[in-house]
């Protein structure tokens, strides 16, 4: 294997088994994402999709009982959540937490500062922020609101994407970012993903094919019972949209 190839591998999940309170959720999950690749994971509720995203990000409630996660060639088992964030990993939450009393503007600046090595210059940051907000068609007034406090579903998702644009992750995990979005918001969110994707590895968890009208995945994986049962190209998402998951279940049981 050439050095270049090594550097291009962003995430490698191998034979991952994960439990919460001794209930197994992931059962031998494997997945490799290289730079510039967009991977989509689909599957029914409870298949373990969100767990995969959380465990890759380092959520302390999940216990890895077997298998490994490598990020940029390093086993990250011992890294805490914030160390992963500082190393370039990002998770767009399905249900982002509300932080009362903390203004979005302050939060964004502190967050970006904690992830970047070099000191943040006020004017440059504001310029960058303005640009990103314009791209996402966000109102300036969002900055003085409290983080996710009283936000609609769509507003929350847009704020997640704004953070992704500012944090410029190397690995972007997007957990049902498209849920609850209207067509316009979906288009805007897709624009955000497409601007980050070429320099990063992207993992998109979704229930719907419609996001994929705007974002071109390289791989589509189907998860059932905590493992990948089928991998294909964009055509797999269309087939799932039309036929559901039953046909895969029989394959899995066979």
């Amino acid at each position: 294997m050439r050095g270049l190839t090594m550097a291009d591998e962003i995430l490698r999940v191998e034979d991952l088994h994960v439990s919460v309170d001794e209930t197994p959720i992931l059962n031998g999950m494997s997945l490799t994402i290289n730079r510039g690749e967009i991977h989509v994971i689909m599957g029914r509720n409870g298949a373990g999709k969100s767990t995969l995203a959380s465990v890759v990000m380092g959520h302390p409630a999940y216990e890895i009982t077997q298998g490994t996660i490598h990020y940029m060639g390093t086993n990250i088992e011992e890294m805490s959540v914030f160390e992963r964030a500082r190393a370039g990993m990002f998770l767009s939450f399905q249900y982002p937490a509300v932080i009362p009393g903390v203004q979005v503007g302050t939060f964004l600046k502190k967050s970006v500062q904690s992830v970047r090595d070099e000191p943040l210059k006020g004017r440059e940051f504001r310029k960058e922020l303005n640009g990103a907000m314009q791209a996402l068609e966000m109102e300036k007034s969002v900055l003085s609101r409290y983080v996710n406090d009283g936000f609609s579903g769509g507003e929350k998702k847009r704020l997640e994407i704004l953070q992704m644009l500012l944090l410029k992750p190397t690995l972007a995990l997007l957990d049902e970012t498209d849920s609850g979005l209207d067509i316009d918001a979906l288009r805007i969110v897709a624009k955000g993903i497409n601007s980050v994707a070429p320099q990063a590895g992207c993992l998109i968890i979704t229930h719907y094919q419609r996001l994929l009208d705007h974002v071109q995945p390289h791989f589509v994986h189907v998860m059932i019972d905590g493992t990948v049962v089928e991998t294909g190209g964009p055509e797999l998402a269309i087939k799932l949209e039309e036929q559901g998951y039953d046909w895969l279940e029989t394959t899995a049981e066979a």
Partner: protein
Amino acid sequence: MSDEAREAVGDYQFGFHDPENATIRFDKGLSEQVVRDISALKDEPEWMTDIRVKAYHHFMDREMPDWGNCGELNNIDFDNVTYFLRSSDATEKDWDDVPDDIKNTFDRLGIPEAEQKWLGGVTAQYESEAVYHSIREDLEAQGVLFLDMDSGLKEHPEIVKQYFGTVIPYSDNKFSALNTAVWSGGSFIYVPKGVHVEMPVQAYFRINAQNMGQFERTLIIADEGSSIHYVEGCTAPTYSTDSLHSAVVELIAMKGAKIRYSTIQNWSANVYNLVTKRGVAHENATVEWVDGNIGSKLTMKYPAVLLKGEGAHAEVISVAYAGAGQHQDAGAKVHHLAPNTTSSILSKSISKNGGRSSYRGMLQVTPKSHGCRSKIVCDALMLDNDSRSDTYPTMEIGNSTADLEHEASVSKVSSDQLFYLMSRGFSEEEAMGLIVNGFFEPFTRELPMEYAVELNKLLELEMEGSIG
């Protein structure tokens, strides 16, 4: 600092102390003679000496409160307190004339710098008396009186005599009696009719000596249609033995006047902070207490407002932070004594590392006071399972037209919030700091910006090194 003291207080940044260079120091302990000596030393009029002596006897006869943290209260050794200590022979108008040690202390606390930037006047009290005092010339020209209380009594005895003890008589409680007996220092402010003091004026109280008792007395009178914002801060060195701070603050807002009184109390964790604060609001007047309790070993303080005139308004916004070994027993009291009066109380508390915070509130509406409105919100945030938070609300509603709202909540920092913030690059401590600052935000936004920034930094420091 001894190891024991270090353990008790953590990393309190104002815990340094100067050598004690007292020019006059009374022996420890309290007697009628001590009270008379303080009065004689200050060359006070006889009526003040008389009040002091009466107050002293009331203090001696009065039982310790049987509520609040009585266990801690009964630990106070009144015989081991220094009741008067003079560290400088004069109250200077120029920082350069203040003794070097003391000036350096206030420099470290950032007072002269703040004064230059954004304050209308400053009084700096060190131990028992003010060592520095100044007011902007334009305020003086408008007839605003801003003096330390001792000078106030000397220069304006008729005003002091008229109002002293009218809002909080010495017989109000044991500690108001103690304060009245041995008071020294504090601020005296009179704002003439229609004058608006635009820049806040500040008092800073510093205890330096060990086993010191500080008993400042503040009286603020805002005449008709005037307004003023008074800010006080306080710190003390960290010792393994206790000090006592027992102030009395009386506010009088005449018809249509507005007084805002903001406090950031950050005593070291060896200080008993037992303070009586009460304001009177006459017709259409407003009294606001913005009260932050971060430090001390035990604080018992319930800023009160007597709404005496029709249309008067009271506002009490308070926060309390109780860390290891601390009990913040704070709250608010509002008495609706006239029709169509309104009040709003917001209390927020945080308990951490076994600290205890209590909200103690009193809301009274008298029978003749129709059309009153009041809203009370109490929020408590617990940062761990070892800490404690309690609420003791009392309501006496004598008029059925009163419109009252009361909300209370106790919450914990959720693991979802922590995971979210940490996934954005914040360490666990930074995440806690952010959540805590956000929780106190409704309070900090009421502070002058410089204070808000300071308070946020302070809270972030409190979050450091404390998460296992």
